[in-house]
């Protein structure tokens, strides 16, 4: 099977895509030409401006359809595959009990000015999400959910006080890359406050993260859109236990 594919409109290999954007130029022929120029730079050839609409005096909105010339090489796709087994609640509890010999401590929070707790609550609260119970439901996990708008210093302090094995941070607001700034600030603060050996596992999540960015943001793992609690719990035992079980 070939690992090269193209977008599919209605025929294999047609390469068709849909695109929309606004340009800060008045709606006229030049604007359409500008839209085609951009579409061309994006690799659409041919490109058709199928809709344009003036918005106020200085902006024009476009819908463009066309064939994109790029190839997608599936062999070179970079993904964060789940590199740990997906376990059941019973297995997880047993593993923690047997190998850690104490409860695994998880501290969770929405940091910065972000007040979107539904996502982290879905992971932490008993109620859970998508039919899966949250981490509080796991007998061998101790969960401290700090809620919304927690400042980074408070989070570090509390993680230290609770002897957290893992810190779970949620970031939902992304305007002006707020989520990236806050995550970097958080990981830097932990690095500064604690020596590597005592630093808890740092996990961030939220619908707009790119899971491949963990290293760049200085965290151990990123979870995106549609994460379920069991995935997170399985990851935690995988990432916390082997290394630390020995030390514990």
């Amino acid at each position, binding site marked *: 099977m070939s690992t090269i594919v193209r977008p*599919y*409109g*209605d025929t294999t290999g047609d390469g*068709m895509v*849909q695109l929309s954007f606004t340009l800060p130029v008045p709606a006229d022929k030049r604007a359409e030409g500008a839209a085609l120029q951009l579409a061309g730079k994006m690799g659409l050839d041919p490109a058709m401006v199928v809709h344009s609409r003036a918005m106020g005096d200085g902006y024009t909105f476009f819908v463009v*359809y066309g064939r994109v010339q790029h190839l997608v090489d599936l062999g070179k796709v970079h993904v964060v595959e789940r590199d740990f087994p997906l376990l059941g609640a019973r297995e997880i509890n047993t593993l923690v009990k047997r190998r850690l010999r104490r409860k695994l401590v998880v501290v969770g929070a929405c940091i910065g000015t972000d007040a979107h707790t539904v996502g982290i609550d879905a992971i932490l609260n008993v109620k859970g999400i998508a039919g899966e119970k949250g981490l509080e439901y796991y007998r061998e996990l101790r969960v401290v959910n700090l809620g919304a708008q927690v400042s980074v210093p408070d989070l570090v302090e509390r993680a230290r006080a609770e002897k957290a094995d893992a810190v779970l941070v949620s970031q939902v607001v992304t305007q002006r890359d707020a989520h990236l700034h806050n995550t970097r600030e958080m990981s830097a603060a932990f690095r500064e406050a604690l020596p590597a050996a005592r630093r808890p596992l740092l996990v961030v999540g939220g619908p707009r993260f790119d899971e491949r960015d963990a290293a760049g943001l200085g965290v151990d793992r990123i979870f995106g859109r549609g994460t379920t609690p069991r995935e997170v719990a399985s990851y935690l035992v995988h990432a916390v236990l082997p290394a630390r079980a020995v030390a514990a």
Partner: protein
Amino acid sequence: MRGKLDLDRAQVRRARQLARRAGKPVVDLARGHTTVAVERAVLRLAGITGADPDGIPWVNRLVDAVAADVGLGHGVSVPVFHALAISGAHDLTMLAQKAAAGSVRFSLPSGTAATAARRAARRAVAAGIKRIDRRRAERERLVKRYGDPRQRPWIYLIVATGDIYEDIPQAQAAARAGADVIAVIRSTGQSLLDYVPEGPTREGFAGTYATQENFRLMRAALDESSKELGRYVRLTNYASGLCMPEIATLAGLERLDMMLNDSMYGILFRDINPIRTFVDQRFSRQIHARAGIIINTGEDNYLTTADAVEAAHTVTVSQLLNEYFAHEAGLADWQLGLGHAFEIDPDLPESFRLELAHALLARELFPDAPLKWMPPTRHMTGDVFRGNLLDGFFNLVGTLTGQGILLVGMMTEAVVTPWLSDRDIALQNVRYVLGACGGLHEDFVPAPGGFIQRRAHHVLGESIELLERIVDDGLLNAIADGTFGIMKRPADGGKGLSGVARHEDDYYNPATELLEAA
């Protein structure tokens, strides 16, 4: 029950009477003529298949040869079966080959030879009709086994890649995603071809050729899907254009379930000669009646060239005519997928209520017909976001007014023939609207004497006026004047007129005989 529109029953009766009076002369015309396509259809029923090395079907070669020798007005059955008897050809296909090679000539037998030829023709055609009957019984069995769609309207989706082998997976995906009916759109050029292409095809433009083999492949694929899904998935194609009767026949033979089959579409939108069309129409509808196929008429098309408000009554008039012609050809009410469409300019104030009025009018005029409700096309633009919204309101009218068949609108209507993803988005749209608003019709009660009722009464009134004029002037003149879709089509113009012949006294057509006997 009086319905939501409180229509005047006497008016409705009058409208139907007028339609009958307007249509009758055209039926008489059709009864007195035949066409090359009708004769080819008869021979197809009699078993001829295959095509010459250039792709021209043997049936065309054969009918052309007969016409050249003895003309068309006697029907081809007798000369053909007479020649078959005396030529020593095994079957019709071989006979056609000989005729093409110039080694057979056709003549009109008389006496016992004539009687024998008629009998042979009738026997052969009866076998073809029997095959159609078996396919109908098979459909009934499968519907019983797998079941009909759980909801009304049935969800009707178009596939149009031009390549039967791309169409098949797309159709199966659509069925899986919820389509109850799959229509394979035809290539732009096919309606003007005076022959039916052969074999599986991969090179259509904006649609795939209608061929017997393509029909068979797609029906088989959808039988698989029906089994997988536990719901009988219907297949539709187009019995229109210059080969309408033959395609109807192939549809019957391959168990297609619905066919686009309008009494005037070919005239108006393909510039096919009116007489040719009406003759072909009548025969093709007799086949559809026998095959248990639901026809879909094309009134929606008028609203792509004429204004949907101004011309609303032309839709109603055409529906009444289509109903009359259909009944006359033996179709039952459950087979009448009369068309109409959501085509009013969305910028018009109260456009949605106007749509409701028109859609309800059709519903209440034809309570037992599985009306086919067509999506916005004309006022769709490249703004695909707005397009999906309009389609949602179209779907809402569909469920509020109890339409029978919902042709699913695509957000890319103004851009491309549907993409795989367009269908998926469109089906989600339908599912949302039918699911969220499924029972809302209970709460939709047009205010007595209000906007919706008044509009419906008005359109019905205009329809009656127009029908009166048509009765006076004749339907052919009305068509010539641009009454429908603003397309002016004189009775002596258009394509395919040379393929029409008046019946001679001894005209014989075993298919008509058998079909009308039933």
